């Protein structure tokens, strides 16, 4: 483990009465740096909180916002639950998939974009909605998605999954 990572790990552990509570926050921190939860991060986490790497993997696999493989610099998550479906999410999903050239749970060949249809994002009053790197976009239409895409391509990519 790098000294920097170990130091952050100790900070997170100090927040809680028991070290294991820091496991997911530590993995979120590693993911922010590495783009996904690497095998090394899981080994580091196991060492930090005192459980086996296998247990860490089991726990990490439970949570959908912890990526176990490189996903993309831009993570596009479109809501697929009832309120958005009633407001045209299916047509929007079809459009975005065509535009990005990838399907559900896929990454573009250049590694830039990852697309996923996700469950309710708690923004049902502004449906259909999506998140790009956990930032909300509301009332999305094909035209407004095109503008978003242009802005994403122009901006320098921040961490796709910020830890805090």
């Amino acid at each position, binding site marked *: 483990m790098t000294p920097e990572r170990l130091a952050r790990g100790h900070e997170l552990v100090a927040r809680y009465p028991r070290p294991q509570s820091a496991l997911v926050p530590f993995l979120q921190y590693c993911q922010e740096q590495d783009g996904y939860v690497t095998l090394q991060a899981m080994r580091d986490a196991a060492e930090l909180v005192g459980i086996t790497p296998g247990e860490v993997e089991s*726990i990490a696999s439970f949570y959908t916002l912890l990526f176990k493989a490189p996903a993309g610099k831009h993570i596009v998550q479109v809501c697929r639950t*009832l309120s958005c479906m009633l407001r045209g999410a299916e047509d929007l999903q079809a459009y975005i998939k065509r535009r990005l050239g990838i399907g559900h749970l896929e990454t573009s060949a250049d590694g830039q974009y990852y697309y996923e249809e996700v469950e*309710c994002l708690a*923004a049902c009053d502004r449906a259909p909605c999506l998140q790009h790197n956990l930032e909300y976009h509301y009332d999305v239409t094909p035209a407004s998605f095109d503008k978003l895409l242009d802005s994403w391509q122009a901006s320098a990519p921040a961490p796709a999954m910020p830890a805090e």
Partner: protein
Amino acid sequence: MATFEPVIMKGIGESDLADIDVYERGGGFSVLRKVMSDMTPDAVAAVVTESNLRGRGGAGFPTGRKWSFLPKDGRPRYLVCNCDEAEPGTFKDRMLLEKTPLQLIEGLVISAYAMGAKQAYIYIRGEFLEGSRIFRRALAAAQSRNYLGDRILGSDFSLDLVVHRGAGAYICGEETAQLESIEGRRGEPRLKPPFPAVAGLYGMPTVVNNVETLCYVKHIIERGAQWFAKIGPEKSPGPKIMSVSGHVRQPGNYEIPLGIPARELIDEYAGGLLPGRKLKAFQPGGASSAALFEEDLDVGIDFDSLAAKRTMLGSGGFVVMDDTACMVNCARTLTRFFEHESCGQCTPCREGGQWVARMVARLEAGEGSQEDLRVLNVINNTITGTNLCPLGDSIMPFLSSVLKRFPDEFAAHVAHGACPIKDVTAVVA
């Protein structure tokens, strides 16, 4: 037009209540000051009990009673604020977190004081990154003015609050799954009893309260138990935020006095149906609730009136479906949700959820059979009531209710091999 004066939504959209100066100018933290100088913890708890506040997260359990279950045995006790809002159709806690985080902090500190918790956690849904950032800033500001931390406002009471972000799992909104998740494990619900009040976080006495519930505590202490208890029905009193979405003109969060008819919520608050449309169905309490229909529009929006209709208020996610909605499509969306979110511990939820979702998807695609319909009509008995937590029991209510009310629509998907509704709306559009 609706005339109810908002309580916890007051000022949202008018001023930046996440700014501590703005919040204080509007009277913010004056209730906490009063509590710290004039009230004992028991006195605070007594007011909350007398108000008959029922939890706003979904289960509707009386908050004061929940607090009273904490054993007085000297062990450390914890307050956990549940901000893992993920019930489809519900978006009130995210609004409260982002727009009025200091009100939440004030309610949380008062509640922790009442139950004698020196350590609190807030579990914020992983997707609410922006909300968690706003909350952390608000928390730092509140700490800098001694509304949290050591010896709050010169009293003997100290409270530390840790922000814990989720990482994507609907089930972590269930209180024991949430405790497992904070302890750094898979978010799998625990067998109850023991209840969290006896053996909760780290095995210690713990209360898990929803964001909206804690916000109301502040106002109940300020305005008195009777003020709250006299709003709405006697056994289900108070205001409540309803998140209205789907086929209405003005989707949004509306704070209502509990007990108003569903019709009023749709027509007066949410602006009514879209032009030229007819109501087909509505879900009063999120994806887990059974649907109601046109003939139910006079039902009161409160815990007991909705329970009497075999559905529930739940978390207040009110989803309206008009005559352009295909019930098979709606059921497919929601059964897929539960299939996706099952933690996998209990067989009826894990396996049943998968098979139900597959059958409904088949029906929607026009590939279903009479046998699928027969199974869907009887499977309720083997899935519902056979799981550790309420998720498994949430798979069937919506599906069963629309299957019973619109059997012809389901049968038509089998007979025509396609959706009859979509054909009709395509022609109309």
